[in-house]
């Protein structure tokens, strides 16, 4: 907030005089806001980014059409809210944030194309965007070639690190290990049935989960199943689960399949208040489609739940609902997306520059105390230190937090012994 005018001049007359004197020689040359103590554009932007004396442009790149719009809508809303709030506080280095929104249209080449457009034509100072791993993988080479900065919100499978990306969601070990430890201890879970959609994130996550269950927890995996994306018939696998009677069903089913899976579990008479189910793919957003009555009792392991009881989160939830309507729900990724613009603002101010080459190293050690999930900190590997929490789904579609790790978990995108 260093750029706000300090109320140091008490007499209005003196202030007027001073202003007049300062402005006299330059009044015809300079725009009004150069009275603020913002640093000169030439000093803080040496690489030709879209930064003027009054404005800085960033890009928002998510799918608002196509399959992924279901998930990405929340992220867009959170990013716009953060930008709004930052602007209300005076912007970044005295510059208001202006955003250009592009639609990735749930299509990975489109994501790459739009990222290139944002970097090359619009010269944006940062991009808040992507959701699926596939879209991030498509955008990554563009970010590296044109030296951009991407703030990526989704929890993901890890095995990646880039100078040009800040990962504001959890990598796999941050999300998986603590949840498994908890379920093994409190629910006495010895046998696990793993079930997921068939693509990179569930498969990598299950690989890590299996290693942890068999190696560290001394449990056993009684089944591991993958279904094509969009699969809608789970009756056979549910019968298999009934036959093997696992202590814990561990689920990473996504998208429309998610809804079908829980509806059919419920219909098959599996009572989630008796059968422990732990998922890493259901947030408040998903429950909207599944229906609280179909999933109540299940546990989810995330870093954020809308019901978190802390002052930061209460403020965040209130502001979010004020901007986007009383009925909107906030899931884990939405909160992570909200962190992006804030972390970027703090990094830029720490570096004293918009230059990518300066903010990339400055990112390490950035702390955000006002994060809705609680205190977070950026690790030198560009992931966040964060807590893991287990919540139990309630009838009203919210989660009740039943466990949280006492300490922040160090991000470890290349976990040894889990690959």
């Amino acid at each position: 907030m260093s750029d706000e005018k300090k109320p140091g001049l008490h007499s209005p007359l003196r202030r007027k005089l001073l202003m007049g004197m300062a402005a006299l020689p330059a009044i015809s040359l300079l725009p009004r806001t150069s009275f603020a103590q913002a640093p000169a554009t030439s000093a803080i932007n040496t690489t030709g980014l879209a930064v003027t004396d009054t404005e800085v442009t960033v890009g928002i790149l998510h799918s608002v059409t196509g399959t992924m719009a279901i998930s990405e809508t929340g992220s867009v809303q959170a990013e716009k809210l953060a930008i709004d709030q930052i602007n209300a506080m005076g912007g970044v280095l005295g510059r208001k944030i202006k955003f250009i929104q592009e639609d990735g249209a749930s299509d990975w080449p489109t994501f790459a194309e739009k990222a290139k457009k944002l970097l090359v034509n619009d010269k944006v100072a940062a991009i808040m965007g992507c959701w699926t791993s596939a879209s991030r993988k498509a955008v990554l080479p563009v970010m590296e070639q044109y030296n951009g900065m991407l703030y990526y919100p989704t929890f993901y499978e890890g095995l990646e690190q880039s100078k040009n990306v800040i990962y504001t969601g959890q990598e796999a070990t941050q999300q998986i290990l603590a949840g498994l430890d908890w379920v093994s201890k409190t629910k006495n879970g010895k046998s696990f049935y793993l079930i997921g959609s068939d693509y990179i994130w569930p498969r990598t996550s299950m690989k890590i989960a299996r290693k942890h269950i068999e190696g560290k927890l001394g449990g056993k995996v009684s089944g591991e199943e993958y279904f094509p994306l969009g699969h809608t018939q789970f009756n056979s696998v549910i019968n298999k689960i009934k036959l093997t009677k696992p202590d814990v069903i561990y689920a990473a089913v996504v998208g429309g399949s998610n809804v079908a899976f829980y509806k059919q579990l419920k219909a098959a008479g599996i009572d989630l208040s008796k059968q422990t189910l732990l998922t890493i793919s259901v947030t408040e957003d998903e429950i909207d489609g599944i229906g609280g009555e179909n999933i109540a009792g299940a546990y989810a392991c995330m870093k954020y739940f809308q019901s978190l009881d802390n002052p930061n989160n209460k403020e965040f939830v209130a502001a979010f609902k004020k901007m986007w309507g009383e009925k909107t729900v906030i899931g884990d990724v939405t909160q992570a997306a909200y962190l992006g613009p804030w972390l970027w603002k703090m990094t830029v101010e720490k570096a004293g520059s918009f230059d990518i080459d300066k903010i990339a190293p400055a990112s390490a050690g950035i702390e955000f105390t006002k994060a809705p999930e609680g205190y977070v900190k950026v690790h030198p590997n560009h992931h966040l230190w964060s807590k893991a929490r287990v919540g139990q789904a309630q009838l009203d579609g919210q989660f009740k937090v039943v466990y949280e790790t006492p300490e922040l978990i160090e991000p470890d995108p290349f976990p040894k012994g889990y690959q």
Partner: protein
Amino acid sequence: MFGDYSIGDLGAIFAMQGFAGLILFSVYVLMALGLAIIFGQMGVINMAHGEFMILGAYVTWLTSNFFQSHLPSLFSGYFFVAMVLAFIASGALGMLVEWGLIRHLYKRPLDTLLATWGLSLILQQAYRSVFGAREVGVELPQWMMGSKQVTDTIEVPINGIFVMVLTLGITMVVAYIMYKSRWGRQVRAVVQNRVMAGAVGINTEKVDRYTFGLGCGIAGIAGSAFTMIGSTGPTSGQLYIVDTFLVVVFGGAASLFGTIASAFTISQAQSTMEFFMSGSMAKVLTLLTIVGILMIRPQGLFALKVRK
């Protein structure tokens, strides 16, 4: 894999597995019937079939909301009202589409593929703009949820039984309409020889419009029923479209009986294999088998014998 289980357990599982297969069979028949009528009787490849289903699902959602806020005492029966409304809505949209789009393309069957695919994209985006990108949760009355305890170990999902009964009913109605009623005779006459049918006084345009409307209306009912087992979102229709085409093409395009036989074969194969191997593998094997059979019998399982 069965070493550790008692005979009773295994018997129960096999019984439930049998039911799972029958439920899948009903689901396949229900989603394929509408397409079979349109594709089989009119030769139109309706790529927007899934979106007509989802229209039915959204109508169900709206109806459930309406009943919840205005007629909570009648909530337990809203589903039947919703299905009728879904039929009307999807059928009406179908007739509108036939009038505005399809009838101009009867002489260019491949173009209908492209046009209806475009239509499906338009409808998806329309749903997204109107109902929002997020999935909506359709609340069911209490009696439709959960399962029925047949014996100590055998449980059958109630919504599965509901879909089976519904499918049976609709199939009988469609069979009656197509093969016993005067209107069904007209439809078949138009299919076999459009010019001659017109010459004997059948209003072929009207027949086309109602056939298309009927197919879409049944898709609407299917979509309404599937709110019990699946998701309701702008792109949910895409989840069903591949299986739907599979059933219709494998069964032989012009034969309703073929559609039913093919749904039975595919569902039983799929659900049995899913039990013994992983879901993705089961799907791969099912698809490979179907491709293999279609290479030998390109006309599908059952084909009308027509003189060419």
